[in-house]
């Protein structure tokens, strides 16, 4: 390890993964001094069966469960104020976010409103100071995940909230909920996990605590995504992918730059394209550019991608290029397996010209705007 400035890492999230993970929820909530959780979800996004599976897991625990299943992509602080009042009235003492993306973002901001006793949630903003633990928040992911569910970030109403205290206390990854309806959904989740994990490793200073999460995520995606895409009902493979998504979120909380993330986020917000789809398109370009910059450790990415034998046989000087080549082949195989279901460029994704203008306007406001534009140009066709 070279002489490095002070570095830090935190992952406030506990992981429970596997068979009957949901059934541990009553004990976990009791351990957090909670007994009246409010489930926040979108029945349209996750399906009523998932909601029932979660509710049934509480069995005869005696806990009172609330349910709001109408979260949409256009959720705003008005909804948060409404839900906050419901929490106060019904005395809910924990939040369970069932699903991913906007559902979890809304749950995090709701948790902020409730825990800080905010008089008017409309006044909440990313500048609202948070200096203590919030009420218990549990995330229960389903197959469609952005990879930020376990992170300290909430992208809500076009603003970015960021605090260690926003991250959930617990992520419950249960194979009954993580298997996908189709290959493209799990592919998007896997690519988001892969992109976030790779970027969090190479875009920041060396940090073995963060790398524990990001390398495990990369390995899970590499080893399981091809199987999960071909057979989305494969519980084990999709469980591994959602593990990877959760781990990548933990790593992403501590990353510096976030080029892949920014690109994924803007296309999601403007055109509702799952972030992993865009991140998959951008991955070879962004990583290749990092390689050209020559200051980032791409070489060590090879180990989780290919395993010990191939890694040790590859000369050190060739590992970075080898990592890019492996990723290139991996992506090509995914595109081959999914065909039209996984767009390889923005044209295949059907992004209209006028939306592109808006997207570029948003990117231009970013301090890396000029660079991000070059990536968008390269993934256009």
């Amino acid at each position: 390890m070279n002489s490095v400035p002070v570095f830090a890492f935190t992952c406030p999230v506990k992981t429970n993964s596997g068979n009957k993970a949901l059934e541990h929820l009553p004990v976990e909530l009791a351990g957090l001094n909670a007994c009246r959780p409010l489930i926040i979800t979108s029945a349209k996004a996750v399906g009523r069966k998932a909601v029932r599976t979660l509710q049934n897991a509480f069995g005869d625990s005696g806990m009172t469960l609330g349910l709001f299943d109408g979260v949409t992509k256009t959720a705003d602080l008005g909804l948060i104020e409404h839900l906050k009042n419901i929490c106060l009235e019904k005395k809910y003492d924990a939040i369970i976010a069932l699903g991913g993306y906007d559902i979890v973002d809304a749950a995090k901001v709701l948790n902020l409103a409730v825990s800080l006793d905010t008089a008017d949630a409309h006044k909440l903003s990313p500048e609202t100071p948070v200096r203590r633990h919030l009420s218990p928040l549990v995330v229960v992911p389903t197959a469609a995940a952005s990879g930020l569910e376990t992170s300290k970030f909430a992208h809500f109403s076009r603003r970015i909230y960021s605090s260690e205290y926003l991250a959930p206390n617990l992520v419950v990854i249960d194979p009954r909920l993580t298997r996908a309806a189709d290959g493209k959904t799990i592919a998007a989740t896997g690519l988001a996990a892969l992109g976030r994990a790779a970027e969090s490793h190479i875009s920041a200073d060396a940090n073995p605590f963060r790398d524990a999460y990001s390398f495990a995520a990369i390995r899970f995606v590499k080893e399981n995504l091809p199987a999960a895409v071909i057979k989305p009902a494969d519980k084990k493979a999709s469980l591994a992918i959602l593990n990877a998504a959760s781990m990548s979120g933990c790593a992403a909380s501590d990353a510096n730059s976030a080029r892949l993330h920014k690109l994924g986020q803007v296309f999601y917000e403007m055109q509702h394209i799952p972030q992993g789809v865009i991140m998959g398109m951008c991955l070879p370009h962004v990583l290749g550019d990092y390689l050209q910059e020559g200051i980032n450790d791409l070489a060590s990415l090879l180990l989780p991608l290919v395993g010990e034998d191939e890694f040790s046989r590859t000369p050190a000087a060739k590992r970075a290029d080898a990592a890019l080549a492996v990723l290139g082949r991996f992506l090509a195989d995914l595109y081959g397996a999914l065909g039209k279901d996984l767009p390889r460029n923005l044209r295949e994704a059907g992004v209209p010209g006028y939306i592109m203008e808006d997207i570029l306007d948003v990117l231009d406001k970013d301090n890396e705007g000029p660079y991000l534009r070059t990536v968008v140009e390269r993934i256009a066709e």
Partner: protein
Amino acid sequence: MLLPDYYEFCCRVKIVAGHDALEKIPELLTERGAKRPLIITDKGVASAGLIDIVSAAQKDRLFADLIADNVPPDSDLRVVNQLAKLYKENDCDAIIAVGGGSVMDTAKGVNIVVSENAEDLMAFSGVGALKRPLKPLIAVPTTAGTGSEVTQVAVIKDHEKHLKMAFGSYFLLPDISVLDSRMTMTMPPLITAMTGMDALSHAVEAYYCLQKNPLSDAHSLAAVRMIYHYLPIVAENPSDRNARLSMAVGACLAGIAFSNSMVGLVHNLGHATGSVCGVPHGICMAIMLPYGLEYNMHKREEAIAGLLLPMAGEAIYRETPPAQRADKVVSLIRQLNADLNTITGGRHARFFKEVKDREGKPLVPREVLPQIARAALSDGASIYNPEDTDYEDNLMVLEAAWEGIPLDRNKIKRG
């Protein structure tokens, strides 16, 4: 990569590491709304000048003058209660624990008392008795190490009632662990060697024992790589601050691994040897480590082989045929013990026969081995060991570890 049918993993501690990490403490406390910490330590740490370094690093940004240095080598309920009273009388709002395992345990006990206004600490013993976050606790380890800066357990002894109280809760995890190279610079080579091997045993056992999971594995491998590489360096060059920091980081990674994956035979027999004969914990771990691997080899060969690359690097990994990798790991650990023995002028023992006290008296007489083998039967660490152990198995392993000869694997009963 292994994905268990079910697993749990948690390390909520914020890790802050660097050559000047201590200077971050004031802002870390401010982020948590605290500004008046009680510093808990022991006389050894204080006399090594480490508390002066901690205080100086705060540079008047913090009231870092309330220091209690009376933590004994074994955590004591009386001291816990006395320190909790000191905390309350001085309107403290945070704790900074600077030291090794006993200081960390004491600080965790104090935190329970002050956070829950506990009249009787015993009421919070066991697992799951705590239900909400405690006061901010910053752990600053001074060895590399026990890993107790990232564990959710504490053991406090009630010497009056002759009881040992054990506490287990994620709320006991320190909020922050500050790994600063200055805190381990003064460790002499023997302590460096034994605490380093303690850390290595955590990382290795976590990797092959029954409760392993993807995240504990990732932490184990990272820990093994750092500790194996830097321990001999830092034992020979105590003032190499990069090596010191790497060891602190490695020991912390190992602590995260084993606290989420449990340990096995090495700790089982090591604890028993420590409690029967008074052998320092790290020495027990160092001696037992190769035997734990040999004993479990028939059940865990693939996992043990997986340690070779992080330990030895690519060249040795490439040269070692796959069928020999696990054995190579065992021989490398034996060699590490031998190297540390040389570096410490013979004081870092390679086997129990050569463990001596300061006066040169052997600490582990051969005739005591049966007593140790029996004592190990009631230690919880046996539960997570891949292969079953009984009295005869324990004695067989202890005999080999006493002589310093490899285990005869043909004699291992396979369960």
